[in-house]
């Protein structure tokens, strides 16, 4: 086990593994069929959404049951500028605006909501976050001129004026020559998802990761360390909102469509389930959660058993909660612990003894007669 640990924790081995994953991700769409490419893109979309949820729930310990609200708002913020401006002089600039707004608008909304609500604890916060999709959905339906209502907005066939002066129909996310649409969309989604995974990975290592963790486990200690629980909860909630919004943008790249249904509350629950199944306190867990979210329903549809999809999801989450509370991402660690326990390794005591032998005067625990006199 020692050798295994050494290999896994070696930074060059990790870097190598990461590069292999990058190369596979880069080459795969060129050889895989469109369905596979779309499936992987779809997983990446939800992995980003779940990653946001993990930061607020898994890392900082705040229950959010309104994450689909931010995904839905992000999708609108992405698609509406593209619908309105892509065919005009802005052209591709509309996509950039959509991307920026898809992070910005949910982020600002998340910040404002968090400033008011994170003072609430536990269930109260969960209740407030439930209200977000519950209010957002009918609002989106009401302003259907702008949001498309239940019909939704599709940008698969938008009017634009070509170089020949004629009006054409086009898809802003259609590929240029040499690539298929599914490949092009895959590359956009994967590149953005990777970038946001890298940002989260750097953030939760070091200063902010430690601060989130102590806020989650003990607010009194956190504040004694100069970590204001309020500020860090607001920060985590805002980051989660931004990630939800960016996932909304990626959803548009992937499907060029959204509707008020994207906001629906039950999607929030699905995301929470996927987050827990994958491992809420982990970056890799978000990817595994995305795989779970997308593939379970796909497999059930393939088996023509889609009416049982939620049943399967329910069984899986119960099994995970009992057998693997840290989610699928904690599987290697759990196995390692079990193996170590089986091998009865007393590495701690051994290290301690060695330290004492080398001139350290620490003694073993013995009853102190001086106490409580």
């Amino acid at each position, binding site marked *: 086990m020692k050798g295994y640990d050494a290999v896994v924790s070696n930074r060059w081995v990790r870097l190598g593994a990461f590069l292999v994953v990058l190369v596979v991700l880069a080459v795969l769409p060129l050889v895989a069929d469109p369905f596979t490419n779309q499936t992987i893109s779809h997983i990446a979309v939800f992995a980003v959404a779940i990653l946001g949820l993990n930061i607020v729930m898994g890392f900082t310990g705040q229950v959010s049951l309104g994450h689909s609200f931010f995904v839905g708002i992000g999708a609108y913020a992405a698609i509406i500028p593209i619908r309105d401006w892509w065919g005009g002089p802005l052209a591709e600039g509309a996509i950039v605006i959509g991307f920026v707004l898809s992070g910005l608008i949910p982020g600002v909304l998340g910040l404002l909501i968090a400033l008011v609500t994170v003072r609430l604890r536990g269930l109260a916060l969960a209740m407030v976050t439930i209200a977000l999709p519950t209010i957002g959905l009918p609002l989106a339906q009401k302003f259907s001129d702008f949001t498309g209502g239940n019909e939704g907005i599709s940008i698969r066939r938008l009017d634009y004026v070509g170089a020949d002066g004629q009006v054409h129909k086009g898809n802003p996310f259609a590929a240029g020559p040499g690539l298929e649409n599914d490949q092009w969309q895959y590359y956009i989604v994967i590149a953005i998802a990777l970038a946001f995974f890298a940002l989260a990975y*750097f953030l939760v290592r070091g200063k902010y990761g430690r601060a989130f*963790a102590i806020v989650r486990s003990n607010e009194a200690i956190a504040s*004694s*360390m*100069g970590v204001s629980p309020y500020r860090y909860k607001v920060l985590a909630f805002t980051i989660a909102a931004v990630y939800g919004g960016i996932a909304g943008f990626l959803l548009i790249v992937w499907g060029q469509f959204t509707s008020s249904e994207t906001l629906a509350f039950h999607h929030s629950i699905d995301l929470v389930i996927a987050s827990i199944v994958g491992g809420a306190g982990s970056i890799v867990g978000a990817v595994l959660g995305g795989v779970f979210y997308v593939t379970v329903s796909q497999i059930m549809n393939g088996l023509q058993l889609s009416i049982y999809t939620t049943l399967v999801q329910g069984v899986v989450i119960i099994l995970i909660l009992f057998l693997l509370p840290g989610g699928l991402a904690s599987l290697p660690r759990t196995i390692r612990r079990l193996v170590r326990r089986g091998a009865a390794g007393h590495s701690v005591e051994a*290290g301690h003894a060695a330290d004492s032998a080398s001139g350290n005067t*620490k003694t073993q*625990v013995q009853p102190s007669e001086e106490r409580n006199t």
Partner: protein
Amino acid sequence: MGARLTLDRISLSFGGVHVLQDVGFDIEPGSILGLVGPNGAGKTSLFNCISGHYRPSSGSILIDGVEVLGQSPARLVHHGLARTFQHPALQLHASVLDNVLLGGHTRLPGDAVSWALRLPYTWRAERALRDEAVELLERQGLGWAARLSADELSHGLHKSIELCRALMMHPSLLLLDEPAAGLSHGEVEQLIATVRRLRDEDDMTIVVVEHNMSLIARLTDRVVVLDHGRKLMEGTAAQAQADPRVIEAYLGAPDAAA
């Protein structure tokens, strides 16, 4: 530089219960004050008032002459205050090193975006803090444990790690809540040496809550004895141990002394 801590007529009540009544004292910079008294005397409550976790109903708390009453615990850190807790709440699944690094939180620069982008100055600061934490652990004889997960270690080691975490804050005023509770004899000796060194070499002002009178006698420059939320007496540990009021407060009746 040690901070001067001045408490004046601190009162605290929960509902109708008076936990503290008109408690006041003044600590010389760079000295060790023992806060003693029987269970329920209000020692930890007073600590919580100083560290901002409780808000006294009246009185004043000055750190180096600056009124800090009513400030949040997170703000008080910027006045040089650090504290430990009766039960060292470590991050059990994090490494010892990560636990200690948490103490350096306020000394790390940069907002969340800079850290997410891994700007060079952020990881340089992180690496410097890491070196400092390793050095501190080694000085405490805990270098071997740095990479271990905290839940693999004993209670006594948790207390040492918690003290290291507080020292990473570079405090000028350190509050230790029952630092010797549950420690072995050897660990207590090490603790005494460490706390004395903090006073003598780092010129820290230290307040210690402790039941153990013999430890208090060896460690402190002065003691304040609390009983039922009131200050019973103030003086040296020897004076306190000889004071009949203190003996009575501790043991109920003078003849019950063991």
